[in-house]
């Protein structure tokens, strides 16, 4: 087979697409295919990662779609950073599929899995592509899957949350599209690398406007305050597996897009500082807002926004350490928050409040332990993964002399500890609802994979060091990027 | 007189037509935004699409014009109308 289908980054998108188009057909043959096919697809994509990612660490893989050299055609840039994200997304997709196998019962399942696959594929496309309009297309794919999945449970409030998401999300699309249009009309090219070289054709005042448009557009998807109003509603309305993917995938893809675009097209000190400050503001406000939250999913949503804010604050430093830390924080958040969403859903169902956790320590000890682990990891207690990511964020801030930032991050961590431990404490209250049902093995397995990830990174943080360093270099080395893309 | 120097060239017709259409476009857009009767608002958006479609044609973009005509004028309007039938005609 390798000769017939040489592996290339486009498989990340093509395979889920093919599977998504096939799914309605195979569903007519047998219902069981509906569940199996997405899993096979994610497995295949993981296999692609396993083969391609080590190669990307050596040298970025640049693929030209339809055989046209970059300024003319669309290219995919599969460097260490894109590879890292693509692999992360595929892995999360697989885990969420494994979890959904038994936990997701809402019909129509075929459509659910199509949307799920396309959510992952769209986000992967966003990080892979080297073309700004193609980026927009993939953003739309991600966003439309996300809207539908938000309203998937078809209750009134869920539909409303989905509608809010569409409202704000379409604003995001409109702004990004406008920005692209302005850039194209000045430079006559859509390729990111080519644009980076041609940015001098755009007057400075226009660049500021375009940056503002992109910041708002991508910022909406990346949940930057005050653009993240849709997020708490969407997270709490969507089925938990989907919320896990929102936290783990869509935000990360948008953040990647924002980072890539900023560093390639708008590398001003001001734009970077602005991103950092916005990240901090997001962190502080989200964490404080989470403090009083009774609805667990909303609490996790706010926490999610806060964590992303932390990553953005580190990213905005745009030093090697800062990007390293931001990547670390994002990976950690993807794993941990994914696990928390899934655990809470398995423990207390789709509309869990804090009271829903009461007494779970006795009834569902394994899930309680996992929740505790997740809470500790998200707060950043050693020896779990969150500690190292938070520490790298802090040292990155220390290196640039931003001591006030360190203090703010640490102060919000206390707030974070307050609400997460309050929730953890609920597990050990004696009174509570009667426990119903056992958690199926596949769901536990999915959670166990994530928990193992938390512990692994916690005990061997060096194991992902190379990955993160390469990713950070890949993002920051714009010259290498443009040369690589435009070499032929 | 400057006016007298103008002659009715195809160029001028083209310019004038475009100008009028652009004006109508803005009017139709505002009309559909401020209209409380949603049915009229839909007609307004449909009108916007129609004018846009003509404009695209005038700008030598037949592909886009065709798309706009088919999607903007026909399909979107139909979908809006169906949605309207399922909800209510007037905005609160």
């Amino acid at each position: 087979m390798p000769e017939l289908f040489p592996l290339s980054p486009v498989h990340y998108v093509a395979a889920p697409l093919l599977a998504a188009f096939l799914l309605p057909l195979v569903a007519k043959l047998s219902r069981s295919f509906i569940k199996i096919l997405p899993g096979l697809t994610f497995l295949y994509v993981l296999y692609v990662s396993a083969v391609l990612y080590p190669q990307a660490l050596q040298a970025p893989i640049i693929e030209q779609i339809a055989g046209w050299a970059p300024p003319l055609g669309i290219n995919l840039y599969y460097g260490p950073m894109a590879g890292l994200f693509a692999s992360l997304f595929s892995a999360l997709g697989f885990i969420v599929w494994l979890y959904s196998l038994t936990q997701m019962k809402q019909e129509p399942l075929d459509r659910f899995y199509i949307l799920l696959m396309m959510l992952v594929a769209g986000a992967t496309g966003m990080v892979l592509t080297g073309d700004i309009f193609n980026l927009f297309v993939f953003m739309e794919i991600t966003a439309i899957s996300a809207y539908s999945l938000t309203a998937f449970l078809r209750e009134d409030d869920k539909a409303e949350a989905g509608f809010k998401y569409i409202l704000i999300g379409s604003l995001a699309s409109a702004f990004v599209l406008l920005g692209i249009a302005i850039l194209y009309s000045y430079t006559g090219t859509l390729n990111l690398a080519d644009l980076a070289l041609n940015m001098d054709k755009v007057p400075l005042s226009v660049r500021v406007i375009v940056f503002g448009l992109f910041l708002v557009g991508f910022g909406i998807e990346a949940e930057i305050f005050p653009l993240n109003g849709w997020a708490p509603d969407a997270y709490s309305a969507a089925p938990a597996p989907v919320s896990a993917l929102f936290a783990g995938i869509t935000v990360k893809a948008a953040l990647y897009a924002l980072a890539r675009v900023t560093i390639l097209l708008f590398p001003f000190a001001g734009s970077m500082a602005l991103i950092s400050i916005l990240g901090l503001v997001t962190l502080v406000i989200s964490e404080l807002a989470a403090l009083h939250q009774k609805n667990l999913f909303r609490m996790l949503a706010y926490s999610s926004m806060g964590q992303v804010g932390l990553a953005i604050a580190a990213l905005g430093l745009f030093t090697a350490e800062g990007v390293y830390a931001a990547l670390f924080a994002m990976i950690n958040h993807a794993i941990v928050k994914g696990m928390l969403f899934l655990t809470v859903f398995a423990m207390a169902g789709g509309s869990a409040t804090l009271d829903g956790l009461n007494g779970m320590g006795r009834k569902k000890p394994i899930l309680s332990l996992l929740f505790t682990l997740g809470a500790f990891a998200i707060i950043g207690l050693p020896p779990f993964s969150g500690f190292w990511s938070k520490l790298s964020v802090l040292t990155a801030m220390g290196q640039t002399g931003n001591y006030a930032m360190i203090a703010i991050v640490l102060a919000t961590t206390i707030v974070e500890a307050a609400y997460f431990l309050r929730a953890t404490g609920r597990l050990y209250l004696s009174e509570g609802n009667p426990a119903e049902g056992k958690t199926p093995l596949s769901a536990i397995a999915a959670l166990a994979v994530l928990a193992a990830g938390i512990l692994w990174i916690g005990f061997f943080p060096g194991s992902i060091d190379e990955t993160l360093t390469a990713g950070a270099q890949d993002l920051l080395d714009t010259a290498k990027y443009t040369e690589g893309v435009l070499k032929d | 007189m400057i006016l007298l120097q103008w002659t009715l060239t195809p160029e001028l017709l083209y310019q004038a037509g475009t100008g009028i259409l652009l004006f109508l476009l803005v009017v139709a857009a505002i009309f559909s935004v401020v209209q409380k009767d949603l049915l009229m608002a839909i007609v307004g958006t449909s009108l916007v699409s129609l004018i846009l479609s003509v404009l695209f044609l005038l700008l030598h973009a037949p592909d886009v014009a065709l798309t706009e005509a088919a999607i903007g004028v026909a399909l979107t309007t139909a979908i809006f109308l169906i949605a309207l039938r399922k909800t209510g005609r007037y905005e609160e």
Partner: protein
Amino acid sequence: MDITGIPFFLAVSFGGAFLAYLMNFAHRFLRNAVVLLTVSASAALLFWLGDETFSMEMGGFVLTLGKTPYSLFFAGIVALLAVPTVLFSFTYMAKEERPAMYYLNLLITIAAMYGILFSLDLLSLFIFWEIMTWSSFLLTIHKGGNATKAGVKYFLYSAAGAYAILFSVVILYNMSGSLLIEDVARSFVLQNPLMQLMLAGTLLFGFSVKAGLMPMHGWAPDAYAESPAPFTALFSGALSKMGIFGMGMVLYQIFLQSPFSLPVRELLAWAGGITSALATLRAIQQTDAKRLLAYSSVAQLGYIVMGLALGTPLSMMAALFITLLHGVFKAMLFFAVGAVYFRTGLTDLNELRGLIRRMPVSFLTVLMAIISLANIPPLGGFVGKWLLYESLIQSDHYFLVIVAFFSSTASFLYVYRLIFSIFLGQEEKEFEHVKEVPFLTMQLPMLALAAVTFITGIFPGIVLAPISSALTYLGFPIQHDMWSMSMLFNEWGNRMNLLAMISVIGTVFLTGFTILYFYRMRRTRYVTTKDIHTSGEVPTENENLTYAINFYQPFERAAHPVLSKSIRAWIDWIGRSVSELGDFLRHIYTGDGQTYAWYVVLFLTFMLAAGSWIL
């Protein structure tokens, strides 16, 4: 692996924890054996611990572990308390739920304490510090219910402290490029003094939270009262001493050369003094045995901080001596109270009474402990307090002497209340079936620790030898004539110079008793319950005639002005304000899509305006 190395030591300590967790699924006895073996093995390994340091890289940081004489002293305290604690847990925790979690967390806490002590760099110290914090948090909330609230409070105070530490660690790392305490100390003196003050201030703040120094003591009473009794012994006895360890390290290894060192230490000494006085007054008010002991712990740590902050060789010696002794006698007290709770299910001093004949060993333990606590010779507590007074006087802190003396004296009041309410007074029918606790697992730990107080009182040299090497390590000029520093010791320093003191004290007491005896003899007669008549009636046997309720009402009325203003209330107020702020901010998210769209548009407008303005 080298069995004298620190990696092996920690591997045993942490590995034992997980093994015990797994063994819980096999059998109770197997698990208990593993638990006991783990703590005793690590205690034994302490003696063989080699000198070589151990480094490893983790997440881009170099972590270095190694022993120092200073840390070895504290490790000794941990080991001394850890073994009795697990022993005491076996029976005590038998009827509690989720024993696996309890032992896992207990052993992790113990191992993490060793880890803290054997950290030569700030990051590994912080890592173990946090591990200790979360595992002890899980132990505190083990009972559920109210304990959850106390535990969260404990964790939040700890987190505030821990993150203050981390703040400094990150900045220090950035400044010196190394995490090793030696390197940090070397580059620390090069910083400007204000920076030094800030960094040391945050570090000291962080460590003092764990030590329960006022005003950061708010977590202590609740957490001590709600956690399972055997763990409380370790909690108050050893875990809070980690704060003392850290403060000593900061003050004398990092901060000493700074121009602000002296004023900061003076301030700390006063904080210690005030803590001891106020906490003693609070302890007197308590009606719950564990809360009483909790406040007593806070007070005792105040003494320790006082001695630590003064920074004379003698005061340091005093501080470290009290550190050990307080650990021992407070563990005894918590064990005894735990034993009473184990048999009666009560810790309320107003309900307990007359257990002396039912639980004589517990009574003996409490008696020994409070003699030690009240600094009465010949038990160990006396030595420490004497040294403290002596050092305070030598360094001209007369006012602090008064404060310390006042709180020492006042502590008689609460220890008396404790022993009276539980063990003395009329025997109650409801306690008729109360038996003494089992010997091996519960009496033995208590008695062993009681023996320690006795031995350290008679032969303080056993403790002073490691203390002097610890102090030498910290840079204090202690030569072989250390014994001459205090008039308390004989010329070889291994024994207390008891003769003079015992004769003085003995004479005073004997004279007093003699006078009293002869003065009151004629009017003294022996009574039984039956001899008491109320309103001319003989009371029935089960009618209670001794009361412990409102034990110190006059005192409480007198002390009211001081105690009515609570610092904890202020800190709670801060917490409430943050929480209200959070509630307010939550309303930014109105749930209305249009509002969100407004935010987006406003934000874009703002960005565009700001961008063009900057241009």
